[in-house]
């Protein structure tokens, strides 16, 4: 896996390696805070998985294994940047300040969005594979028209990379030199399909054919993810155009809690990737190089527990909305069929009326 074409600054063993073009600009403190984010995101993910098992969520899409890809990319964002996620970007949501409970609303099936995308400058999840890539380019065209120094980031998987929308967005991003950074999380699988079905050569090459840079990064190396993303964002903000970053990583868990990965992949593969764990390698670096003490790690662990506890409480308190709320935002303006629906629901006693 490691080769000339993969940007890596930190080995699975937690050792630094140098790269001709990138070097880490992060202080020990910053790395620790990245580590903290990763631990918390993993804890959120585990809590969500257990909430799902307990019947409190309809579904969950675990992010485990991809924490470095997301925290590295997410921490490189400026507050004024804007992000268009797919459905597994819990780590990105965390870096954008989305409350963990809000991330779970879609999965508790009480909402199709979950948070105020304008407040966090992070759009709600897009489930139809690839749709969001075009939104990102369009938004970026708006940034250009506003003369703003902002970048836009969007996310998709190795599977979604085959969708026409993603590929058309490459055409457009190149044509309009749009300030977009694509984070392609190649987690090796699209449900049961290996990434080799979507591409016979490394996915980051796609960008070159459209005329913009594509880079493969060790997606389990939070230092490399951060540096490569930061540079791409900076370039985008000042008119350098789009970049495709392929975060080479692994989905440690199931596709979703509905999935059974034993049907299509072997344990040995998962085992191999355990050795490349993004959280562990960062911890090793912190321990050895920055002499971070056990106590500090424990504090972070406790913090993560607290987040999980709060999350659980928040989720359990999350009731199904009043059915009549389905009419609230179908249209911005008045609509006779909405009036008719509301009326019928009240007449049938399904709802007492609008809140």
């Amino acid at each position, binding site marked *: 896996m490691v080769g000339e074409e993969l940007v890596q600054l930190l080995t699975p063993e937690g050792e630094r390696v140098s790269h001709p073009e990138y070097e880490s600009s992060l202080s020990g403190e910053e790395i620790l805070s990245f580590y903290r984010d990763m631990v918390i995101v993993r804890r959120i993910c585990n809590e969500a998985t257990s909430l799902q098992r307990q019947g409190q969520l309809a579904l969950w899409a675990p992010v485990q294994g991809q924490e470095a890809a997301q925290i590295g990319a997410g921490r490189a964002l400026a507050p004024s940047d*804007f992000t*268009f996620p797919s459905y597994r970007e819990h780590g990105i949501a965390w870096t954008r300040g989305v409350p963990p409970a809000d991330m779970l609303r879609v999965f508790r099936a009480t*909402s*199709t*969005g979950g948070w*105020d*995308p*304008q407040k966090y400058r992070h*759009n*709600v999840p*897009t489930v*139809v594979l690839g*749709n969001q*890539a*075009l*939104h*990102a*380019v*369009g*938004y*970026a*065209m*708006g*940034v*250009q*028209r*506003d003369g703003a120094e902002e970048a836009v980031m969007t996310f998709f998987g190795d599977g979604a990379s085959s969708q*026409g*929308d993603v590929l*058309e*967005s490459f*055409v*457009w991003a190149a*044509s309009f030199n749009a300030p977009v950074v694509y984070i392609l999380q190649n987690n090796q699988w699209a449900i049961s399909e290996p990434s080799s079905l979507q591409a016979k050569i490394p996915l980051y090459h796609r960008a070159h054919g459209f005329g913009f840079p594509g880079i493969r990064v060790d997606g389990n190396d939070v230092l490399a993810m951060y540096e490569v993303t930061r540079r791409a964002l900076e370039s985008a903000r000042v008119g350098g155009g789009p970049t495709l970053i392929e975060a080479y990583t692994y989905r440690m868990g199931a596709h979703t809690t509905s999935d059974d990965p034993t049907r299509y992949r072997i344990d040995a593969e998962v085992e191999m990737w355990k050795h490349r764990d993004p959280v562990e390698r960062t911890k090793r670096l912190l321990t050895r190089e920055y002499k971070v003490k056990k106590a500090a790690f424990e504090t972070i662990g406790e913090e993560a527990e607290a987040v999980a506890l709060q999350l659980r409480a928040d989720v359990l308190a999350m009731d199904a909305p009043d059915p009549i709320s389905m009419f*609230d*935002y*179908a*249209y*911005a*303006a008045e*609509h*006779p*069929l909405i009036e008719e629906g509301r009326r019928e629901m009240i007449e049938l006693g399904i709802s007492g009326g609008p809140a």
Partner: protein
Amino acid sequence: MTSTTMTMARALNEGLRRAMERDKRVLLMGEDIGKLGGVFRITDGLQKDFGEDRVIDAPLAESAIVGTAVGLAVRGYRTVVEIQFDGFVYPAFDQIVSQVAKLHTRTDGVYTMGLVIRLPFQGGIGAIEHHSESPEAYFAHTAGLRVVSCSTPNDAYWMIQQSIEHDDPIIFCEPKSRYWEKGEVDLDNPPRGLFEAEVRRAGTDVTLIAWGSQVKTALRAAEAAETEGVSAEVIDARTLAPFDFGPMVASLEKTGRLVVVQESPKTASLGSEIVAELSERCFYSLRAPGMRVSGYHVPYPPSRIEDAYRPSVDRVLDAIDRVMGFES
């Protein structure tokens, strides 16, 4: 009142211009809409006057045209998209159905999808395949969208402006075969609200409902019927989703007989909707079942025989005869 005569194409052009002057966040995007002014010249001269940043020639990808317009809407822009011909809207269908129609809901109203998708639709211009379709039912069936259609230059001028100002996404259907017909345009006052139907001709025996290019067919059929002693009222639906059923009900209460004239195939069409809904609302008034004069259930034929596919005055008269003769 300032009033002037112009073609529908020109009226649309002027309407777009006014909307762009009024609101800097209005953009136009589509294939060949810049220097060429669009294949129908609806955007003629607008890129020259408003610049390439506001009148955007798009790479040839309809899903991207609509998808980027969604992103622009998130950024606060209002994009008027031109789809070159009806039959080329389908590559954008996913973005329209999954995103344009739903993002307002999904964000609890944070984002309004104030975008207008202009669709030159219906046949009658002797074109090759995919240039003569009537896809309005697909969009009307889709919750989250609105669909309107103009049939006169005056409506074209005002409805395009009203659509751009409206906060919900609108599929704006333009009857391409009428682009070059002239009519009076009142530059000061809109004829009515965007979501209102209009009675184009008063009558007492039968109600004809049509939209876009078929309004004219209905009017001509009404004239022909007159000579046979049948008084037909003609309603231009104007808003196709939601329908403005009020004037239709009022008319049916008077006439008791209904014929819908549309170019799309009949099955699960807007005609089906009108007949179904009015059969409910006017059950006691209806003296004959509502009839639909539609395109046949075949792919749009080669245009040398399109006149046999599209509703003709004869076919409408035949339907009028049938509803008139029903009680005998």
